[in-house]
Every structure is written in structure tokens, then in C-alpha cells.
């Protein structure tokens, strides 16, 4: 189920209304059933995959807590392998077989014949990537790791544990939560709190604004610029504008989703972690990654970077670890070389940033030249997004070839008319102003809340672009 749909709105109203009428001891069941329905709307059979990992991790958590020595490690490994294994099979099988087939073809001149996943599994249906797979597997792994580290007790209630993995607001695109934050909340009695409802609804309204008014609108221009076969014919100015728009499209799409998820949980009284903190005002790449998709970057930091030694080892090893993390991050985002390259590029950015801090710290210090730093950081991130959006490496190259050539000075393509372009810049400006000044929409006054919420509903309806585009991060 996608958030920007009537079905979700009715589903949400039904679940929340029933939530506050059902006794606390049955709320976990209501939320679990609702979350199962939410997930099954995509493809009902895939709930079995989800429950497969849930059962293994539930058992693993209990056994790890009760065991000692190698048994603990064994069960941790079982849990990690089951989650990573599911991810590897559904997300990366075709990537590996496709690349091996390509290599065979290159080396021998004959095509490789390794099957794709649909052929390999032979279930009689086309096998597609289960929605939200990358998110809930990482969330599940954080649970068993925390139990293994002794930082969190194993959850004995199967239903509550299943709900931790499947809680519908963050099931398919995060935030990737930690057990310490979420699991205890499912045990707490959540009384109806009008302030939470107002704050949650307002955050959802703002999230919808970002998604339907900003992201979907910018997508009109971006999609036209990146349309199949069109990139090479576009001017550099067109592709530069498309790159700029895409930076805000992906930000509004993803952070909008997070706002709807966090706001939706808030309405019921649950607090999910912040996932974005005005990332485009960052003065460095490292700061950007402390503000963008916070739940993923902290996951990699806590469970991969620090165990690899973090920055407590040699300088060279630190840089290697940094590069590995971002390579993995790129791989997490997608199963094509474009995503891997995007991740590697950010790794290189970060390493250069660290080198600059270490050896050229006094040159153009950040504190003094914040605007220049923020601008350059945004530019680097914007160009990296080209690899994210383009369908292939060849397309990415074509985009840069357009931008960094005399084609930059050719006229811009009017994939939108002038009014539409102005409006697009206007909504980006509104977004930036709100983020720059950390403006919080005040919901304390009831009258103000009703007016603002009604205004948001009307604005989102009137200026929203409703073409049923899925959220970009759903594909991960």
C-alpha cells in the first residue's frame, strides 16, 4: 500500500480509530493484523518471506540470550545469514548472474546461460523484489545484534516482536528502527493524546506536501529529461536543471515518506526516530551523512564501521573502512553498478573531506565560509544523484557529457511551461525556508491547528500531482 492513496487514508483512519477503542492488551494484535494487510496489498504471498525471517530472529533472540559461548555466536550468524540470505537472493541474484553471464560472454564470445531468479526458483510466477526488504531485514538484524551485545533483552512475546519488524508506518521504507526505541513502546499503554494527534497529523500533512506537491511535480520535468533515448538530445542546461530538480525530488519523496511514517506513528502515541535533518544545508559530506537517512547511516556506523575498527585504527585503514561502508551503502540502495558507483563516489567524497580537514584544516575553514561549504556540498551531492537517477552508466555519462560541454549554453528544454517552472522553484524555496529556519508548525492552539490542517489538505489536493507514483525508496 502506498501512502499517497485513498486506500491508505481509509486504512489509517480505520486503524487509528479502532486503536483507541481496543483495550491496550489487544492493541498489538490490531496493529499486527493491520500491518500484515498493509504489506499483503503489494503481493500477499510475500508475507511468508517476512514471517520466515521473523520466526528465525525471534527464536535466535531468545536462544542468544539464554546461551553462552559459541552457541550465542552461532545463532547470531544464523539470524544474519537468514536476513542477508533473503536479501541476497531476492535483490542481488539477478545482478550476480547477469554480471557473470556478461563476463562469460566477454571472455568466450558465447552468451552465458545462468538463469534469472524467476527461472531459478521456478515458482510459476514472476519473482519480484519484496517491498521494503532492505529495510525490515536491517531492522531485524539490529535486534539480534543488540541482544547478542547484551544491550537489549530478547523479546519473549512473538506478536510484539513480529510487530517490531512489521509496524506498518515504517515497514517498507523506514526509519530503520532500533529495538531499544520501539519495542518498549509496544508494551506501554498509549492513551489518546490530542496533542500527539495534532502533531502527528500536521507532520503527515507536511509529508504529503513534500511528496505530492513538490516531489511528484519535479518528477514531471526530471522524467521528461531522463526519458529513454532522450538524454543525448537534451541540452546541458536541461540536464543541469533536471539534476537540481531531482535532488529535491528524491529528498522530498523520501523525507516526505518519513514524515508520514513518523507522523502516523505519533498519532497513535509512538515515537519513531528522526530520519532527516535539513541535509542540504550541510557544510560537508560527513555532515550530510549525519543528516540524510540517519537511520541507515547510523546502522552502518554501529554495525559495520565500528566493528571494522572505525577511526581507532590507522589512518589508511580508516579510509578503507569508510570506502567499504559507502560501497555497501550503494549496494544496499540498488542492484546495479550505478548505485555501487554512487556509493563509492560518496566514499571518495568523504575521504577527501577527511583529508582536507586533517591536512588543510585552515584553508577556507568551514565556520568562516559556511555558505560556500554548503553550496559545494550540495553541488557534490547533486551530481552524485545523477548516478542514482540514470538508468545506466552510459546514461550517467551522457548527462555529464551534456552538462560539462558547450551544450550547457544551449537553450533549456521546456518540459514544463514558464509558470510551472516558476511554481516549482517557489515550492523548493518554501521548503528551503522552512528547513533553514527550522520552522516548526505550531499545533498547540486548536484553532490554528484546524485552520492549518485544512489549508494543507486543500493545498495538497489542489496543487498535488496524483499520478500514483510510488515512493522512490520503496524500490529498495
Amino acid at each position, binding site marked *: 500500500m502506498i501512502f499517497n492513496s485513498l486506500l491508505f487514508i481509509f486504512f489509517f483512519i480505520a486503524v487509528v480509530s479502532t486503536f*483507541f477503542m481496543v483495550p491496550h492488551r489487544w492493541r498489538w494484535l490490531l496493529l499486527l493484523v493491520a500491518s500484515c494487510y498493509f504489506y499483503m496489498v503489494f503481493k500477499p504471498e510475500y508475507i511468508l518471506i517476512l514471517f520466515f525471517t521473523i520466526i528465525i530472529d525471534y527464536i535466535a533472540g531468545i536462544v542468544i540470550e539464554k546461551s553462552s559461548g559459541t552457541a550465542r555466536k552461532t545463532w547470531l550468524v544464523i539470524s544474519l545469514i537468514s536476513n542477508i540470505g533473503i536479501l541476497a537472493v531476492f535483490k542481488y541474484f539477478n545482478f550476480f548472474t547477469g554480471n557473470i553471464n556478461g563476463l562469460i560472454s566477454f571472455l568466450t564470445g558465447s552468451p552465458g546461460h545462468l538463469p534469472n531468479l524467476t527461472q531459478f526458483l521456478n515458482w510459476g510466477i514472476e519473482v519480484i523484489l519484496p517491498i521494503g526488504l532492505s529495510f525490515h531485514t536491517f531492522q531485524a538484524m539490529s535486534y539480534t545484534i543488540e541482544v547478542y551485545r547484551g544491550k537489549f533483552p530478547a523479546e519473549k512475546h512473538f506478536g510484539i516482536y513480529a510487530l517490531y519488524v512489521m509496524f506498518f508506518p515504517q515497514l517498507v521504507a523506514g526509519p530503520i528502527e532500533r529495538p531499544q526505541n520501539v519495542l518498549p513502546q509496544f508494551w506501554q499503554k498509549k492513551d489518546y493524546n490530542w496533542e500527539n494527534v495534532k502533531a502527528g497529523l500536521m507532520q503527515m500533512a507536511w509529508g504529503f506536501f513534500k511528496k505530492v506537491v513538490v516531489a511528484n511535480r519535479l518528477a514531471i520535468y526530471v522524467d521528461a529529461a531522463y526519458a529513454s533515448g532522450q538524454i543525448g538530445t537534451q541540452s546541458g542546461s536541461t540536464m543541469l536543471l533536471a539534476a537540481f530538480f531531482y535532488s529535491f525530488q528524491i529528498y522530498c519523496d523520501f523525507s516526505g515518506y518519513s514524515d508520514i511514517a513518523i507522523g502516523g506513528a505519533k498519532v497513535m502515541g509512538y515515537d519513531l526516530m528522526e530520519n532527516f535533518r535539513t541535509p542540504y544545508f550541510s557544510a560537508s559530506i560527513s555532515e550530510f551523512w549525519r543528516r540524510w537517512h540517519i537511520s541507515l547511516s547510523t546502522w552502518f556506523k554501529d554495525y559495520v564501521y565500528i566493528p571494522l575498527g572505525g577511526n581507532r585504527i590507522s589512518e589508511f585503514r580508516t579510509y578503507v573502512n569508510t570506502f567499504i561502508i559507502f560501497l555497501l551503502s550503494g549496494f544496499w540502495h540498488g542492484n546495479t553498478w550505478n548505485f555501487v558507483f554512487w556509493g563509492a563516489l560518496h566514499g571518495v567524497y568523504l575521504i577527501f573531506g577527511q583529508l582536507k580537514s586533517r591536512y588543510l584544516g585552515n584553508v577556507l575553514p568551514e565556520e568562516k565560509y559556511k555558505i560556500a561549504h554548503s553550496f559545494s556540498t550540495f553541488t557534490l551531492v547533486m551530481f552524485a544523484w545523477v548516478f542514482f537517477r540514470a538508468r545506466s552508466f552510459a546514461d550517467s555519462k551522457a548527462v555529464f557529457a551534456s552538462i560539462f560541454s558547450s551544450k550547457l549554453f544551449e537553450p533549456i528544454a521546456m518540459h514544463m511551461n514558464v509558470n510551472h517552472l516558476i511554481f516549482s522553484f517557489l515550492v523548493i524555496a518554501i521548503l528551503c525556508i522552512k528547513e533553514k529556519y527550522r520552522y516548526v508548525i505550531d499545533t498547540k492552539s486548536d484553532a490554528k491547528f484546524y485552520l492549518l490542517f485544512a489549508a494543507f489538505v486543500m493545498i495538497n489536493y489542489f496543487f498535488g500531482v496524483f499520478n500514483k507514483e510510488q515512493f522512490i525508496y520503496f524500490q529498495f
Partner: protein
Amino acid sequence: MKISTNILKFSLIAVSFYGIIGLLWPTFYKFCFKNEIFSDQYRFGDLYKAANLADFKSKESDFFCLEMRNLNTSELQNYAITVIGDSFMDSVKFMNQQCWNGAKYQFIHWNEVQKTNIKPISTIKNILIIEIVERNLRNQSQYFTEIFEENNFNKGVENDNSSTWNQFWEINHTSKADILLEQQFFGYSFFQKLKQKKAYFNWKVFEQVDDFAQFTPDKKALVYYKEMDKNSNESCLNPISEKEFDQLENAFDHIKNEAKSKGFDQVIFSVIPNKSTVYIEKDRTNGLLQKLGDSRRISDNYLNIYSDFYQKGNIYYQLGDTHWSCAGRDLWLTKIKQKILNNSPQ
């Protein structure tokens, strides 16, 4: 405060329950449509439903062609007409027994062809009419040779028996559920006005219309977006090779020969032009309909209406719909009856 909160909670539950009932219970839906509790969102046309532009709204009477037909003549009473066709032959809106001047009539939709054993319906003169709209012709023609395949009427039957479980998830798939919910809650005139204002604003200020609908180059008509996509073989702007055209003629020949062997006395092919095709200059199109009309191989069996429809889109097509108007339907009926009577074997 507690009373008002409870009222709000129960109201929200009632509203969402009403929505869920509509999603899960087809009988409820049919009852509401029959008793006009739900308004038919297609009553002003499929293009209007997508674009919500008040300037491009069909007249409701355009969907009641059957009630407008004066059918007192019986010059076809010695004929049996079998039509294989699409929504242009819709039995509620455009075409039924009464349209055929005394002839026996049966209609088989393209979707039902594989499940139907197509054969003449009586011992009098049997006419088979193959009707298809231009945008579906090139994709559908690859299945023409299967029309008369023996025992093909068993195909597809198993698909009808999908389980309740599959049907439930089919309905609850987001895109379908949204269509149902929008029909249930937002199909009324008040919401129609709101949608029109939004659509008008987007059209006039941003020159944007819904993805489903596009303007013809002269901006005089709304058409289905694929009809304007030169990369889609549903469009008259998409080139057609000689080889593909030959394959089309071969397919028509095949149907003609098979139909005659099954007992049909006459076969008539009719391709209804896309609405967009009649608004675009002939030399800008792929020329498919002109070629079909000029083809000597199929001229005896082909009903050419392109020249009649060309540049008369505002008369023969509906303003807010992809289908023809009653006038367009009438013209087609007149011409096809002429062809039946003129070509009728002795």
C-alpha cells in the same frame, strides 16, 4: 469533550467501515449503482473522468444511442449478424439487437473470443463483422489466427475461477481500491466541481492535463494519451512497415477463409479510427487506415469509414470520451448495412 471525542471516533469508524464494505462486497456496489446512490463517474466520458476539464465533457445523451434509434425497418430480417468487437459495440450504450433492422444478432467481445465457439447462428445468410479500434489493431492482429481455433473456447475458463483469496487481493490492490473508493466517496457533483477547478487551473496555468488524456496538436480535442505517443503502435504517428502491413492483410485473409469454411456467407472488417487520427493531417500519420481502405486484397471485405470520419471528429466522436458519438455510430451502421446489402451473395 469525551462525548465529542467518542462521536468523532465512531464517525471515523463508520466512514472507514463504509469504505471497507464497498471494497470487499461487490453486491453492495452493484446495489448502490442500480439505485443511483453512487454516481457513475464515466457518465461524462472516460477522458473527462481522467482530465476533469469542464470544456471537454460528453453529453450524457451520447451514452444513450440505443434510445435514439428509430428501428422500424426490417431490410435485414433474412440475415444473421455476428460481431466480434470491442467497447464501440457496447450493448448498453451503442449497439444491440434493435440496431440491426430485423436481423438476428450476436456480439462477442474480443476478450471472450478465446472462450467462445464462434459459428453461424442460423441457416439464413450469416455475416461476420470484425470490428476493432485502430489503437488495438496492430497488437490484436497477432491473435486473429486464433479466432476459429478448434476447442479454443476452453481456454481462459480456468482463469474465471480464481479463488476468493486472489479476488480479495485483486480488489485490494492499491490502484483498483483507489478507483473504487473514489467512486464511492468522491463521485458526486460537489466533488466534480472541485476537480474541475483544479483541472482548469492546471490546464490554463501549467498546461498540464492528466496522464491518461492528451490534447491533439490543434488543441481542439482530448484523446487517449497513447494515441499521441509516436513510440506506441497504438498511435497513428507510429510508422508501420510494409512487412507488418502485409501481415495484417494476411491475417484478414485468414479470418475470411476460416469464416467461410465455418459457414459464414460474408465477412466484413471494420477499423474504427482513433479519435486523434481524424484530427491529424493525413500526411503526418502512418497512413495505415488509408492503406487499408485502398487495399485491393481486402477491398471487398473492408468497410472504409476513415474518409467519412476524417476532420469531423467533433461530430462523430464524443467530446469527453474515447468512443464515437451517436452520430458516429449511426454513420457506421448505415455504411455497414449498405455493404451487407450490396455485397450480399445471391
